């Protein structure tokens, strides 16, 4: 059974049809890259997978591990192992990053009937990941994403990915706004997460992240449909020739 199976997906946002029959299948152990021009529906797919209110499935289906995602609340999707790295991570002043991370991990463990980490175990785990991502201790104490630079916010998303260890990671333009050093740190984090029992969907505009994370499959999304899929060399072709080459 596929980890994620999207069949003929139609989605409207504010009564506007954005996805128009999208098909996608991701198996465990695979990394897929979804590329496409602005407005093609990339972020819509990410949001509809995570269950953001306002994104309405009008036709087709999304199955995660065989389960119909449309029937699950956002938190239930997270509890089943779906993770969205946000394109624009939200700032939450007054709630420390550490507290947010603990509440996230605890809620996942509790929902799965697993033992909660002790505070000591938790702090140790978070510190280790933060160090790998070159995030100073101070970022753990500050309000969630509060006053973080664009790059720091993205690294904080990857910190969550590594801590929460989901089964499917959807990374919505995690590479945008990153300088080359931060890009490498983030890519290293994603590669560390990559395993035989999980899957990754990388949504991106640019080929450059794929220099560091080699995808198994590359898809091109245009006007709400996947119009071409191929191997990692497809991303290089796109980089050279642009999206017009695919749609023409």
């Amino acid at each position, binding site marked *: 059974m596929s980890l994620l199976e999207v069949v003929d997906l139609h989605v409207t946002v504010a009564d506007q049809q954005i996805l128009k029959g999208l098909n996608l299948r991701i198996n465990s152990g695979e990394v897929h890259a979804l590329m496409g021009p602005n407005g093609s529906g990339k972020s819509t797919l990410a949001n509809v997978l*995570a*269950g*953001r*209110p306002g994104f309405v499935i009008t036709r087709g289906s999304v199955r995660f591990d065989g389960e119909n995602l449309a029937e699950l*609340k*956002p*938190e239930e*999707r*997270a*509890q089943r192992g779906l*993770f*969205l790295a*946000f394109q624009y*991570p*939200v700032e*939450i*002043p*007054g*709630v420390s990053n550490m*507290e*947010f991370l603990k*509440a*996230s991990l605890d*809620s*996942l463990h509790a*929902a799965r009937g697993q033992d909660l980490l002790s505070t000591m175990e938790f702090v140790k785990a978070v510190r280790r990941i933060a160090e790998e991502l070159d995030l100073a201790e101070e970022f753990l104490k500050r*309000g969630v994403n509060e006053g973080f630079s664009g790059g720091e916010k993205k690294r904080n998303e990857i910190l*969550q990915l590594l801590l*929460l260890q989901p089964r499917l990671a959807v990374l919505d333009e995690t590479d945008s706004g990153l300088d080359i050093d931060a890009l490498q740190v983030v890519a290293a984090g994603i590669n560390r997460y990559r395993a035989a029992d999980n899957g990754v969907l990388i949504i991106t505009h640019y080929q450059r992240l794929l220099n560091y994370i080699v995808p198994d499959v590359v898809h091109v999304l245009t006007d709400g449909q996947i119009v071409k899929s191929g191997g990692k060399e497809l991303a290089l072709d796109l980089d050279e020739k642009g999206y017009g080459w695919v749609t023409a």
Partner: protein
Amino acid sequence: MGHRVSYPQVVLERLPAADKPWFSAKAGLGRLNTVLASKSIRETWKYTPIKSFVEGFAAPKSATPLVASGLDQPEIEAIQFAALEGPDLDLVRRCLESVDGVRYPMADLTMLDAPGGLLVKVTGRAQAPLTLRTIGAGSHPVIIDVAPEASLNIVEESEAQDFNTQFVYVRVGAGARVDHVRCALQVPAMQWSLLMAELDSDSAYELQQYQVGGHRRRTDCHFMLAGQGARADITGAFLTEDSCHLDQQVIVEHKAPNTVSRQKFHGIATGKSRAVFNGRIHIHHGADGSDALLTNRNLSLNPGAEINTKPELEIYTDDVRCAHGATVGQLSEDSLFYLRSRGMNDAAARAILCNGFLRECISGPMAEKVTERFTAALL
């Protein structure tokens, strides 16, 4: 309601009419008779009619409305009003006479009603905090005189379950510093309190005020930045639940040049409660270089909850920096979705966001206790 009587003469007639050495009952009653019948009272007590508060004075009193501790230290001298004489008596009289009877008729009522009071003189840097706990019906006014260059921590906790009024007047000498936490985390029947602070040159006052709205509570704070370079930092967090009613009024007067004030209040109203916030900045003629900021942000969590917020500015000089902002809103959908996408259910996500919102205004020695109380109310 056996204590309810007609308003206001019958109540006034019941109050002790004899003059006290520190307070003229005759003058107080005279002011009250005028003020309570005036139109201005309807404006200053717009959302919280004063009538029920006035009637509250007819209720029986506790023998010990207030307990003060931390008095036994070398930098502190405490004198009950009944034992006042000489310059100390003059000092108390001057403080009480400076209270505006038109703005604060409840202060006159309190002074008429209270059999005594406490003067606390702080002569140096007090090591232990002065703790004032309101534990019973009635009132026991406190006047605190902090000498130049001295410092004091004040912890004020309101725990009374019956009608009470609390009046604290703090004089802060030149270069002195006061750190003051006021907590009203219980839900008493009805309460009024007034904090007046008068700041001399280069003195500093930091006030943190935390409240969980009472059945009906009105809290007045009045800061007078009277000496050049004086500074007041005021933060507050409040939450009203069920059918509570909390009315907070803050006035900051900049009376001298280069004075600074900062006010930041965050509030949440739930259930069918009502929260009122009125913050006024008054910059007097000649107070050049004054710098004043006021923000009040509120969350209304239920259509049945009501929040009235009004910042007011009165500025009589050109050379000032002054800004204010007040908002009433709901929790951000983006923030809620972010937390839910990490596995927290809707109720837990809301509680975390509300708590974080209040905690932006919570710090200091009571932070843990206050946060616990707010958390309990939000879950």
